[in-house]
């Protein structure tokens, strides 16, 4: 049976990519993205350029309205209440039912609330979508005392942006050096030290409770310390939005389970992006990917799978982050079994490479590394063996070694 209609639930990067790739691959049937947010937009700027006001809502759209019209991709600005499996479709909040030959779930994640008293307060800010960013932006004025719980990617980027907006920022994390799993301890230490260097109050501690005060909030730490602030932002990760899938009986386990072609346990239903979790052919579950590129890659894979075309090949996973004027990139796995080779410049680590015993590169991370990570990505994907001395030598452009 040929496919004549496809519904995509969720218009983030993953859902958008499915639609874009379906059209690029020649699918000419009905195609709709259901998302209350309307035109799909890019999220990385929400903690940076958009929060700072350098980019407006139009500037972060993944494509202009005219593009969706040209490509006959319908944007349904609605919330899905339930999935229907026989026949395949969705029920919208107003009771309307849409049917399709294929269903793609791209519902993303929600900001994880702090599991402490006060963590559920409406006045506690999070940053996940554009509305969150608008609210956060409206909460920050010069002199605003902003406490951020969680110094991972979102927390660190917001801390940097809020500082630029004139806020007095306190950054709290129970982990002494965040981001070690992403970039390794050496670069993570240097990155984390940049916060204090920029004038942020950095606190190593575990929040135990948040209470409202007359004009703001009070955060109590487990060790009794108290932080008085105007606003609180919590950035401690996400929980995947699997409720629709669970209610419909799809298999889930901290994510909707999919095979390597993004197919869920229900024929005709696919899942992509932050909320999808891959079950490998041997039955083991992969770690759920939450980075920008993962959303795009899984969307591209799903589009190919839906059309029964050759799936794209994706290389080692890659991410970036920007804070305090420093561009951070990582590729592959800095936690893999092996040893770390550091590249030191002016006494500071600028790049770290995770290398297996046989010399294969497994992961790499760099600060303001120029083309270092692009080269590392190719070295990893192509299995190129690079001498350890060359990796450690800041005078050797990695680019030469990847050719």
């Amino acid at each position, binding site marked *: 049976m040929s496919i004549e209609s496809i519904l995509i639930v969720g218009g983030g990067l993953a859902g958008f990519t499915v639609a874009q790739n379906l059209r690029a691959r020649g699918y000419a049937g009905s195609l709709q993205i259901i998302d209350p947010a309307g035109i799909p937009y890019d999220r990385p700027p929400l903690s940076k350029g958009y929060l700072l006001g350098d980019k407006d809502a139009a500037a972060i*759209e993944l494509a202009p309205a005219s593009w969706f019209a040209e490509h006959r991709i319908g944007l349904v600005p609605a919330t899905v209440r339930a999935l229907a499996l026989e026949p395949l479709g969705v029920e919208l909040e107003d009771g309307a039912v849409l049917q399709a030959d294929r269903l793609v779930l791209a519902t993303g994640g929600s900001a994880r609330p702090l599991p402490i008293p006060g963590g559920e307060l409406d006045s506690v800010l999070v940053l996940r979508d554009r509305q969150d960013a608008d609210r956060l932006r409206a909460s920050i004025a010069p002199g605003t005392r902003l406490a951020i719980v969680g110094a991972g990617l979102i927390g660190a980027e917001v801390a940097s942006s809020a500082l630029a907006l004139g806020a007095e920022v306190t950054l709290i994390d129970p982990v002494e050096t965040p981001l070690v799993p992403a970039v390794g301890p050496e670069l993570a230490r240097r990155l984390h030290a940049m916060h204090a260097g920029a004038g942020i109050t950095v606190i190593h501690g575990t929040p135990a409770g948040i209470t409202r005060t007359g004009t703001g909030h009070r955060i109590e730490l487990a060790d009794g310390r108290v932080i008085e602030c105007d606003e609180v932002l919590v950035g401690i990760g996400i929980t995947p939005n699997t409720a629709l899938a669970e209610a419909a009986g799809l298999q889930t386990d901290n994510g909707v389970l999919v095979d390597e072609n993004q197919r869920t346990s229900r024929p005709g239903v696919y899942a992509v992006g932050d909320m999808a979790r891959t079950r490998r052919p041997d039955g083991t579950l992969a770690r759920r990917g939450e980075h*920008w590129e993962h959303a*795009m890659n899984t969307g591209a894979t799903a589009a190919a799978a839906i059309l029964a075309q050759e799936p794209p090949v994706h290389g080692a996973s890659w991410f970036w982050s920007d804070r305090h004027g420093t561009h951070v990139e990582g590729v592959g796995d800095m936690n893999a079994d092996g040893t770390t080779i550091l590249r030191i410049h002016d006494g500071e680590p600028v790049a770290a490479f995770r290398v297996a015993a046989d010399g294969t590169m497994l992961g790499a991370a760099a600060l303001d590394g120029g*083309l270092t990570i692009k080269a590392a990505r190719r070295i990893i994907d192509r299995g190129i063996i690079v001498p350890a001395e060359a990796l450690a030598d800041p005078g050797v452009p990695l680019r030469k070694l990847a*050719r």
Partner: protein
Amino acid sequence: MDSTGGAAATGRRAVDLGDTEMLEPGTALLIGSETSGHPDDIGLFRTENGDYFALDDECPHEVASLSEGWIEGEEIECPLHSSRFGLRDGKVLCLPATSDARTHRVEVANGRVLLYPGTPA
């Protein structure tokens, strides 16, 4: 940022950038307005095959210099967020950039690399 006026002012004037070996294959060079007479910086790219192309140097996505990017075949990958653009036509090939890079015509004639700032390829 709009250089329509600049393009009209520079017209089809060619700038002689150098001999055909001025760039190693697989490398790029920033051509500033003092050289090109064009208001915006231009990136000059040479592919591994030896062909020359030119695009606006600034990535259409965020402030980044495409001439500091990675040349692969006939594509340039932005050094910052890895959007890729076709060197021949400036077409954006992947996110996060969503618009094309503007091309400038480059000719190789009589052993010289000639850039036509403001004239599309």
